[in-house]
């Protein structure tokens, strides 16, 4: 029985390894590049980000003081975003981009917690990889750490309320949240460079970011479902504390051991 779980986990590992053996370099990905937002917009998005970061720090503090046992899971949610945003994957449009990985943490810990974790990932990439930037950190955090997670959260709650199974709500939540992140990026660039109208510019940037992102968003949705599958087998207690699913939906334990 445990062999099956082992296989599940090793398949996940194999996926991660395969992806970055085959597509390691030469592909820059998304996020607005350093210096590429006019300074008034850069400042605007920084200001817009701050209240969410404060709320996020509070929410994380609360979770950790109430349930110290969840620290590890929180770290795992951050690490998941860390891995996925390092994986630049080719897309059908002939360009590459990477997933965000914030959907998982959002489902577990709520959207503002992922604002903070997403920002940490973005700072790392801006300082060490020259990917994204410090001046554009506000805008990038707003798309990846605020819009993405809040959309994910809304969809997760909404779809679950409609009575959809856990996997479907997780999948839709992570996929659409990922897509919305890039649609937000396109909108931010459209607002900053409105030659011929904000709408026209936004659509142009959407052509670059959003279509590339479609298959990657689906991949992110599927990977998030896989992790939730594993978690709902081994971390039921934690998931119950976080009320990821209500008692009757506990789908797993019957078959094991």
């Amino acid at each position: 029985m445990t062999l099956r779980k082992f296989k599940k986990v090793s398949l996940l590992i194999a996926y991660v390894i395969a992806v970055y053996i085959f597509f390691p370099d030469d592909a820059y990905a998304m996020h607005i590049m350093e210096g590429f937002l006019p300074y008034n917009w850069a400042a605007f998005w920084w200001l817009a980000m701050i209240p969410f970061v404060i709320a996020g720090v509070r929410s994380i503090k609360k979770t950790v003081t109430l349930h110290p046992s969840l620290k590890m899971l929180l770290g795992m949610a951050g690490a998941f975003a860390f891995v996925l945003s390092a994986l630049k994957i080719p897309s059908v449009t002939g360009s590459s981009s990477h997933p965000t990985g914030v959907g998982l943490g959002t489902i577990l810990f709520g959207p503002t917690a992922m604002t903070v974790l997403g920002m940490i990932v973005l700072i790392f990439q801006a300082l060490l990889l020259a990917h994204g930037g410090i001046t554009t950190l506000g805008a990038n955090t707003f798309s990846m750490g605020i819009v993405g997670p809040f959309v994910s959260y809304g969809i997760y709650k909404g779809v679950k309320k409609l009575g959809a199974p856990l996997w479907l709500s997780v999948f839709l939540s992570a996929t659409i949240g990922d897509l919305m992140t890039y649609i937000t990026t396109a909108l931010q660039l459209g607002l900053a460079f409105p030659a011929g109208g904000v709408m026209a510019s936004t659509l142009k940037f959407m052509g670059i970011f959003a279509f590339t992102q479609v298959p990657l968003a689906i991949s992110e949705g599927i990977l998030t479902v896989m992790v939730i599958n594993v978690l709902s087998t081994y971390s039921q207690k934690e998931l119950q504390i976080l009320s990821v699913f209500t008692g009757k939906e506990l789908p797993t334990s019957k078959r094991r051991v």
Partner: protein
Amino acid sequence: MKPMAKNGLLLVIVVVLAFAPLFLTRGAKFNGADDQAKAAINTLNPNYVPWFKPFWKPPSAEVESFLFALQAAIGSGFVFYYLGYAKGKHSASKKDQP
């Protein structure tokens, strides 16, 4: 469907999604979407000059890919450390109450 079969099937879909573009769009360069955005900004506003430069840039593509691989390695290291820890805790608690 068994959970293992389910995750296996899911994995196949992910692999196809990641690899299919390489075969569907042969000859494409798979540049980053942000490089294309740079070009688009240039056509929309040819006078725009980036007003800030990164403090530090990886000196070569090799160093950059090393840092990206490192990022993925640290991340996946922790993810699977946690999954292993959860699995161990789970089977230990199963043993306590047979």
